[in-house]
């Protein structure tokens, strides 16, 4: 999940290697081929593969996403002018019910991402730095939330945390009067489950690449282990930690499958934004649903932009030291 962020950097690499391919052949062919642009492409299949790529990308991703945008400005029978459509979209998106759902979705995702930052750091540190029996198995199990369908996770977590007959929930309820499932706490637990691997998988390579010499130098200069960690190790890995936390945050904001099971979806209280979108659709308020979808899209884009900025920042810092 994390690797895709690196691809932007990869693109510039290809361009470098491609410029080597065009050396030499051009001279002999320019007279016969009128379009010099084509003669640079040595391998076959450029138009076929790029054509299909763009066609399929448009059909599955770009055109449908454009429809979302268009829906928020296209007049309908209920809202006969552009102004009225936009007015309705603004009303739905800034409605108290919508605002409450953002607060829940973003607040809980953020809390879960921060907790995953702590758990994920501990896990990544132990997995990279220590050798112990079962390390490889634990390392493999970290990917479980990636591989497991969200509905299965939601079903299982509900059965564990239900106050009425749950494996742990029943006990928590009787001992402390705590209710987890069907409250915001249940959503938090589902989001921790979903986001955990993002932090671990982002941190692992960075922790592994950390040079031992730097820590040794810190120790030589009289730092104790805690000072070395706080002043030397933590600053070096903090961009990666932040990236992992933001990725978990972004994933949590859009999560729906597991939360359906563990949340009671009460309006204004435990209703997340994706659920509100589905309710609007079921009420045939397509314009309102599109507006909420657009709002989520913009906010997710903000999270992705932040992640990319962090990566850029980390890469630059790595270059200067």
């Amino acid at each position, binding site marked *: *999940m994390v*690797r*895709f962020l690196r*691809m*932007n950097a*990869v*693109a510039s*690499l*290809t*361009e470098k*290697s491609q410029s080597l*391919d*065009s050396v030499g052949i051009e001279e002999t062919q320019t007279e016969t081929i009128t379009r010099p642009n084509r003669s640079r492409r040595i*391998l076959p299949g*450029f138009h076929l*593969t*790029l054509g299909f*790529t*763009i066609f*399929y*990308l448009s059909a*599955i*991703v*770009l055109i*449908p996403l454009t*429809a*979302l945008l268009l829906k928020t400005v296209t007049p309908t029978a209920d809202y006969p002018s552009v102004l009225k459509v936009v007015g309705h979209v603004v009303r739905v998106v800034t409605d108290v019910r919508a605002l409450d759902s953002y607060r829940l979705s973003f607040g809980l995702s953020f809390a879960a991402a921060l907790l995953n930052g702590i758990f994920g750091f*501990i896990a990544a540190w*132990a*997995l990279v730095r*220590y050798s112990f029996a079962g390390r490889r198995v*634990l390392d493999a*199990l970290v990917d479980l939330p990636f*591989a497991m*369908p969200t*509905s*299965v996770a939601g*079903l*299982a*977590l*509900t*059965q564990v945390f239900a106050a009425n007959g749950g*494996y742990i929930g029943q006990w928590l309820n009787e001992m402390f009067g705590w209710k987890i499932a069907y409250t915001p706490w249940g959503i938090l637990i589902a989001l921790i*489950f979903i986001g955990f691997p993002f932090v671990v998988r982002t941190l*692992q*390579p960075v922790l592994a690449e950390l040079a031992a010499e730097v*820590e040794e130098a810190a120790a030589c200069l009289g730092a104790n*282990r805690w000072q070395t960690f706080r002043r030397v190790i933590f600053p070096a890995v903090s961009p990666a930690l932040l990236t992992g936390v933001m990725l978990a945050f972004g994933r949590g904001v*859009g*999560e729906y*499958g597991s939360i*359906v*099971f563990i949340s009671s979806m009460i309006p204004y209280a435990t209703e997340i934004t*994706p659920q509100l*979108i*589905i309710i609007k*659709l079921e009420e*045939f308020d*397509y314009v309102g649903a599109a507006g909420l979808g657009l709002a*989520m899209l913009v906010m997710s884009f903000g999270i992705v932009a932040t992640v990319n900025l962090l990566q850029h920042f980390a890469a630059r810092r790595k270059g200067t030291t």
Partner: protein
Amino acid sequence: MRRANSDPGAARFLLIALLFAFVLFFLVFPVCVVVYEALRGGFALYFSALTADHSVSAIRLTLLVALAVVPLNTIFGVCAAWAVTHFKFRGKALLISLIEIPLWVSPVIGGLIFALIFGRQGFLGPWLDAHDIQIMFAYPAIVLATAFVTFPFVARGLIPLMQSQGSAEEEAALTLGANGWQLFWRVTFPKIKWGILYGMILCNARAMGEFGAVSVVAGSVDDRITMPLQIEQYFLNFGLQQAFALASLLLLLSALTLAIKIALEWRHLAPNIVHRH
């Protein structure tokens, strides 16, 4: 004596203990719960839950959806990786960023966009209604929504892999007189087949387990919903045992996926796709 870059024994013990506690409690325990709940009533009840009409139709639809989505996204992934890694063209970085959109968009939006096009009040809704073509709440919309959500899975793995392999061998084959088709099947395919399989495995797992996007376009019409949605239906209708039986099948799928993924990473793709230490 302790080395300068190793931690005190107590800290080490504490961190390893915390790791075990977290993984066992949060990841392993829920898995055990699914298996236990599914088999609690005995094998006879388990099999009757799996062979109930709703379960069978959900399993069938899930397989049919994956059968359409995985090949489509695989062909796309190979084409995209070929175009991006072997040629230089304007807007390449933009193309790569666009391919990744479905990764950061909420799955519910993946369903919503198709509802806005094909739904009753969608752009094509009235026309489809007039011509009696069923897309929403049926197989086509489920395939589209699933294809959106799993869109980048094959491409994302193949691009870095083919990047690291370069174009030199393909160019050599070209000078030896291979045509485009021979070039791909004889030279490129053997080099990337494990990468393709890796992407297909991940794509398949997500396609079969997708909930959010499919729930928007499939609604809750019986006989027309996939396994994850049928699990929800059982759960809502107090069919907990059936829900867990069906969930155990998906769990088996994810265990298989994880096993194949790890085997591929260790054996074939270690230096390229995976940045494992």
